[in-house]
């Protein structure tokens, strides 16, 4: 019996040691600089949020958190870097709707497996996007605009920051939901698309890029595409309130992801810290300037959200007959 008891004791001890080591490992993180990869060029919303998060995490955890920009190929290059990194928590990705929920369903060959090679860690922020039109267009409410579009099929245009972006999907979804035929005009990025919206070459755009222009009167916002109104713009109705409940586009989200196979305690630790960083009241005005609000969800919720959105976008693409050739 001694042998048996010894074995049990040994096993228990080993188990205890392993747990302690696990916890110790988690406690010890981070012991060296961490890099947060942004899959876009510096200067956009994703980049700004990444830098804010880096600053926040650095203050909380004591180690430098460095933002690394790896732009290109609609975000797949940067995502690939993280997908191929070791899952030790020292390489993180600031993920957003475009590369994570939209890109995988467009049929482009990706150098990584979007489900297996990435671990969703935390959903950190959500942005508001709006339905905006050029002020010269004779419509003051969403209903008027839809009527106008139906009366002139094929004459109006909507802008997007590229084929396969949120603006593109949102615009086509609108066509399906409202029964209109507004022509899609893709641009290279957000800046030229907003420029043409303001100039009047295109009449409509759905997204979050022109919030400030709207405040200055260069763009007229008819509705918000988020499920609830934004506290900064209380007079703007949601799409459902404005009369188009069939339009259900998810808000643009931002989150932290890591390479596939990250240990659970590590994921939870980073989740906690990053949520605390963004829900800190000092962060709130900066988030507002970016048209965003902080979120607090578990990694499972985050993972489920990404999967659901992929399904949603696939349905939209099918309904709107969107073709993605390669």
């Amino acid at each position, binding site marked *: 019996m001694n042998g048996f008891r010894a074995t049990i004791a040994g096993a228990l001890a080993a188990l205890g040691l392993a747990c302690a080591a696990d916890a110790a490992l988690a406690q010890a993180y981070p012991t060296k600089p961490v890099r947060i990869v942004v899959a876009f*060029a510096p200067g956009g919303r994703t980049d700004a949020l990444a830098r804010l998060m880096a600053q926040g995490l650095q203050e909380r955890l004591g180690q430098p958190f460095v933002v690394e920009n790896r732009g290109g190929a609609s975000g797949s290059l940067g995502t690939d870097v993280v997908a191929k990194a070791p899952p030790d928590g020292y390489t993180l990705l600031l993920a957003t709707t475009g590369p994570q929920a939209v890109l995988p369903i467009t049929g482009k060959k990706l150098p990584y497996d979007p489900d297996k090679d990435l671990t969703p860690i935390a959903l950190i922020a959500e942005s508001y996007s709006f339905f905006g039109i050029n002020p010269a267009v004779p419509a003051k409410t969403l209903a008027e605009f839809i009527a106008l579009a139906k009366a002139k099929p094929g004459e109006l245009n909507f802008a997007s920051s*590229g084929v396969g972006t949120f603006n593109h999907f949102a615009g086509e979804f609108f066509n399906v939901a409202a029964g209109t035929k507004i022509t899609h*005009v893709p641009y290279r990025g957000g800046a030229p698309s907003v420029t043409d919206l303001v100039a009047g070459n295109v009449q409509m755009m759905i997204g979050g890029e022109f919030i400030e222009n709207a405040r200055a009167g260069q763009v007229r916002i008819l509705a918000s595409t988020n499920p609830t109104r934004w506290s900064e713009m209380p007079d703007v109705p949601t799409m459902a309130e404005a009369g188009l409940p069939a339009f259900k586009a998810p808000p643009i989200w931002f989150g932290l992801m890591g390479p596939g196979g990250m240990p659970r305690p590590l994921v939870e630790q980073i989740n906690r810290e990053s949520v605390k960083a963004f829900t800190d009241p000092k962060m709130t005005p900066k988030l507002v300037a970016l048209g965003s609000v902080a979120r607090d969800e578990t990694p499972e919720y985050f993972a489920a959200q990404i999967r659901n959105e992929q399904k949603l976008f696939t349905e939209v693409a099918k309904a709107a007959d969107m073709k993605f050739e390669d």
Partner: protein
Amino acid sequence: MNDVVASLGLGLAVAATASNLWYCFLGALIGTLIGVLPGIGPIATMAMLLPLTYYLPPTAALIMLAGIYYGAQYGGSTTAILMRLPGESSSVVTCLDGYAMAQRGRAGAALATAALASFFAGTVSTLLIAFASPPLTAMAQRFGPAEYFALMTLGLIAAVVFTQGPPLRAVAMIFLGLLFGFVGADVETGRDRFTFGLPELRDGIGVVVVSMGLFGIAEVMLNLAGGAAQRGERAKLSRLWLTRADLAAAWPATLRGTAIGALLGVLPGGGAMLGSFASYAVEKRISATPHRFGEGAIEGVAGPEAANNAGAQASFIPMLALGIPSNSVMAMMVGAMMIHGIAPSPNLAIARPELFWGLIASMWIGNLMLLVINLPLVGVWVRLLDVPYRVLFPAILLFCCIGIYTVNSSATEIVLVAAFGVLGLVFTRLDCPLAPFVLAFILGPLMEENLRRAMLLSRGDPTVFLTRPISLALLVCCAAAVALLLLPSFRRVRATAGAG
């Protein structure tokens, strides 16, 4: 009008505080030092130093970033002149005559010209931003896809008309440049073209990669292949300063360059680079002795440098007026603002006047500082050329490689630089002009994008190019340029100029 003067006064008061002056100086200094390193352009520098600015008040942060931008631009011109390495796309033109001047021992004069021309352009542009921002923005807003297409076509045709030598070669180079420009994802359909399955190529080949390879690496190869004799030919440095003749020639070129740069720089997306090419072409056309261009004509440095700087400052205008960044550098400034909690808005001038006008005033101060920093340094930079080439060229190669890597951390791009180096060598040996290639490479995809977008918006109606007034005017200029090319008398003049 009085309002603006008062605002400028406010701006100067803000910009001239001791701490803001210090940050401006720091930014300009760091920008220059890093910009001198080949391949590391303003964007990389600004990204590197962005975290430092978190702890500064927003106005100081933006002032410092702006200082870094000009500094890096000027540093890029320095390497263009001394080593034929364009620090960024708008320095490509400076490589042509600036380097030629350096090879004739007039590096000091070239550097000084670049500094002075840039300063002048900077001063004028600052005033332009302050006083003429609304009308310029309104004019820029009238440019739709049709107008952009016409403008770019004009640019390409001008490149042929004004290049020395057989036009056939220039046209061939343009076509080649266009072909390389097509690499990447097509904007309108999202399909990949010519990417050979490499996702790195999905955004096209970087301009920095192409220009560093064609000019910088090829130059190293040429020097090594030609043997030591070719390097020794470089005349000893004669003078650091500009002669009166220099000033007389450079002065009007600077004026013209400023005008061209400012006008083209206001157009969102294109700006500084197009301006420098255009200025070079104009100077060559107007000159009584066009054959000097390519051999060290000082107008070929003064004009494009002025245009370059004017364009860079003018590209602030769409950002300040619309809150929309017109190129990647402005995007960085916007990002910096967002991090500080300021949403870049068209109403920035009203919401945060001290920030807006302080930034504008510091632009001028920054230019002044650049002059103060760089003119004395001219001697130092030129001494660099005395380093034995055996040691210098590996350094150049290393800096190029590292520089390219810092932009996108892509080893593929470094390999591409080598490839373009070989290509540049071949082109130069075959007497094929490089400038049209680079211009076509940059303008080609833009031209195509605008052509297709114009057609999309007009639902297939090609007369849209003729019914819109600006577009029509530009296309008429195109026709005129082509006619000039074909006119026999002009051809005779070019032939004699070429032979002379």
